């Protein structure tokens, strides 16, 4: 196994572009495990999350996160993801937008494993996720497929960027998470609205930009509402939806990312202003972060 997998810590929220390598075989071992998430209040919610497995695919001592680890592969890579399920219910894995060798998805039985294989055929921002009740529990994460050209989101030079930030949008209803098998979905009502698993004021600002910096925002909506995100003091140029480049990119200050969808947009930091709020315009106030100079 050649290791071209680049792991990005969610807490960082921002990375320099990874330098792509030629197509390779990539193998990733994920654990699906139970854990907790501390939310403002503080409130502790039960979660199920993905985590990177330890050596030999061991899940001993791993801590699952919401969202799961960011998986980054290069276009053309032959990817295999092994899910080690430590939960007492089956766990699925699907990657909408990429064709798995196993069909729509794979399912690991309680205590068992399942392997999903695919070719990272097209660059872009993808969600990997469980299904049904596994989703509100926290089984989702970002998969980034990078094109050959370094510093570009897609094949076109018009998708070049200097920095990137992943924004996994989701929500948590602790009452549902307390009883995922039996909770009545009719009463599902999120109380916490999250970016990368955090509610403001715990969210991580995108730091380290300067006028002219092109910041690639990779939105992934893992929640259940079509979510409109407001940007103040700047425009974002929407480049792609669901990992497909748009023929006519457009500029926006309020852009709706459908539930289950992804979107890529570039913010060119304007000459004036040092703090650019980015927040849920449907007024779920804790889904808020900032792009900040410096």
């Amino acid at each position, binding site marked *: 196994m050649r290791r071209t997998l680049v792991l990005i810590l969610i807490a960082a929220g921002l990375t320099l572009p990874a330098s792509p390598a030629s197509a390779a075989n990539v193998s990733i071992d994920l654990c699906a495990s139970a854990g907790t998430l501390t939310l403002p209040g503080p409130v502790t919610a039960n979660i199920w999350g993905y985590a990177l497995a330890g050596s030999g695919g061991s899940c001993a001592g791993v801590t699952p996160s919401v969202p799961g680890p960011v998986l980054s592969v290069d276009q053309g890579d032959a990817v295999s993801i092994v899910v080690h399920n430590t939960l007492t219910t089956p766990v699925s894995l699907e990657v909408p937008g990429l064709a798995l060798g196993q069909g729509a998805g794979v399912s690991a039985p309680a205590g068992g494993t399942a392997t999903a294989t695919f070719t990272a055929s097209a660059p872009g921002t993808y969600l990997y996720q469980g299904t049904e009740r596994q989703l509100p529990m926290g089984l989702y994460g970002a998969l980034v497929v990078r094109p050959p050209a370094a510093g570009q989101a897609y094949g076109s030079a018009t998708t070049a960027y200097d920095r990137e930030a992943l924004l996994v949008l989701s929500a948590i209803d602790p009452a549902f998470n307390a009883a995922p098998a039996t909770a009545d979905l009719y009463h599902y009502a999120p109380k916490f609205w999250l970016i990368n698993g955090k509610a403001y004021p715990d969210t991580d600002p995108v730091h380290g930009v300067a006028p002219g910096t092109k910041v690639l925002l990779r939105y992934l909506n893992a929640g259940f509402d079509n979510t409109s995100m407001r940007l103040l003091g700047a425009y974002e140029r929407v480049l792609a939806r669901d990992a497909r480049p748009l023929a006519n990119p*457009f500029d926006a200050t309020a852009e709706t990312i459908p539930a289950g969808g992804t979107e890529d947009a570039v913010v060119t930091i304007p000459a004036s202003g040092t703090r650019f709020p980015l927040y849920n315009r449907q007024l779920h106030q804790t889904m808020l972060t900032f792009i900040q100079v410096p």
Partner: protein
Amino acid sequence: MHRGFRAFLPAAALLVAFAPSAQAQAPAIPRQGIVCTNGTTFDLTATPGYIETPDGNSVLMWSYAPTGGQFQSPGPVLCVNQGDSVTVHLHNALTEPVSMVFPGQLGVGGSGTAGLLADEAPAGGDATYTFTASQPGTYIYESGSDPSKQIEMGLYGALIVRPAGHPDYAYDAATRFDPQREYLVLLSDIDPDLHHAVETGGAYDFNQLHNRYFAINGRQFPDTLQDNGVSWLPGQPYGSLLRVKPYNATSNPLPALIRMANVGTVNHPFHPHGNHIKEVAQDGRALRTPGGGDASSEHFAATIGSGQTEDYLFSWKDQDSWNPGSNPFPASVASPDYRNLTFKNGNTWSSGSAYLGSKGTLPVGTVSQNICGEWYFPWHSHALNEFTNYDAGFGGMATLLRVDPPGGCMAPAGTASILAGTLNSGTATDLAAADTAYYKVNSTTTGTRTADWYGGFAGVPGGSTGLAVTYTGRNSIAALPTTLWMWKWSTSTWVQMGAATGIGTSDVTVTRTPPSPESGFIGTGANSGKVRVRVLTTGTTGNFVTQGNLLKLTYDAP
């Protein structure tokens, strides 16, 4: 709701209650269309006030009102020109910190107390915002303080930036529009329980949000149809009835501009009936291809996201141009049967005719709001729970598109009366069309012979403008000077319209307009809606017969 309704409306669009016509208004405010507050410096006060809903409720709102002026919801439409240095002073008459954000404006400066998203005005205090309106477009302004409470409570409004030197462009030459047909469609939604909680000091839990009222420009249907500034909606000055005339390459080539904005908390699926609308911009930026070409797109349903603006150009094309006289339905096309129409409480906007510009038969007892055969199309949220007032349909986020007849409203003379001379033959009916039927008047038979008569018109709404008379007729002998006159009710005198025309033995058509003000020529009180047009033909010492073929009045109804 479905595209394709013409003169006949579904029950969805039939009205519940209809208020009387507008009171006198400040002349600067158009009855319909966008109402701009122009300037570069604006003074606004964040203040509480009440709106009225069509179901009889009143709801506490917070809004940005003109400082020292009347409370209004939404805040005033701020209109500036590209390149202007704009200053907005905000005074806070609420009891918690308030601010303003201007999405799409870059480098907003100013002063105030530092807040989460913007500088704030503390309770009783002030803040100032400054920016250069660098790019034309449709924008919103709204609160940047505790948004889940303050935006829900109503702290929002529209900001329009017009291209430098081109107030008739939305953005550029490709987005030129008819300045007489510029409309704002600002969508919002209200949970009255949350407003009640604020009013009574109760617990405000945004997670309990359940919207019950849905508004366009701060009003719910059918109040949306009322004129701008009607006296009975003092806190909701903006109507949203849209009016167009059919597209015509020479006489009506320019589209209407619809500036849509969603300041509500949810995305709204807006459904314009009649023709497609062409989206030309979003969030204040024209839609362009990478090469700078046109990337606009046509829609018959448009989802507008929370916080978004979208600009649309709209031309309505009368594809078939059916006309009861010159282009009637072919035998293969069934005329609409009014018995298949539905009417709510005996009220309708249907003209009873499928021909634009003509009225037909309606069921006995039906009260029609239709003025002269114009067509109405519903424009509404296609989320049917939003097409209600507190869950009762139909109401809420809906208005009407009104397509006026291309030449304006037309009325034929309904009566004919002789002032001098005698009836030869015919009736007023013969004046309805230029055909082979004539209304004939014998001249006087002594001295200088004259034939002097007038046609009477009824049902012309007060406030109509653009009054014009068309007369087609001839005489039994050559070249007799003929003048047209209109009765001025306010002075009880005939007023001559223009110079005499020589009319001989073949038909001549004369068009005349009365001098302004036109209001004096439309009867009021017992003579409400009546107009009289006099035809005076002066001969010499030989008897003659004046033969009237057509006498009609056209006007633009309010």
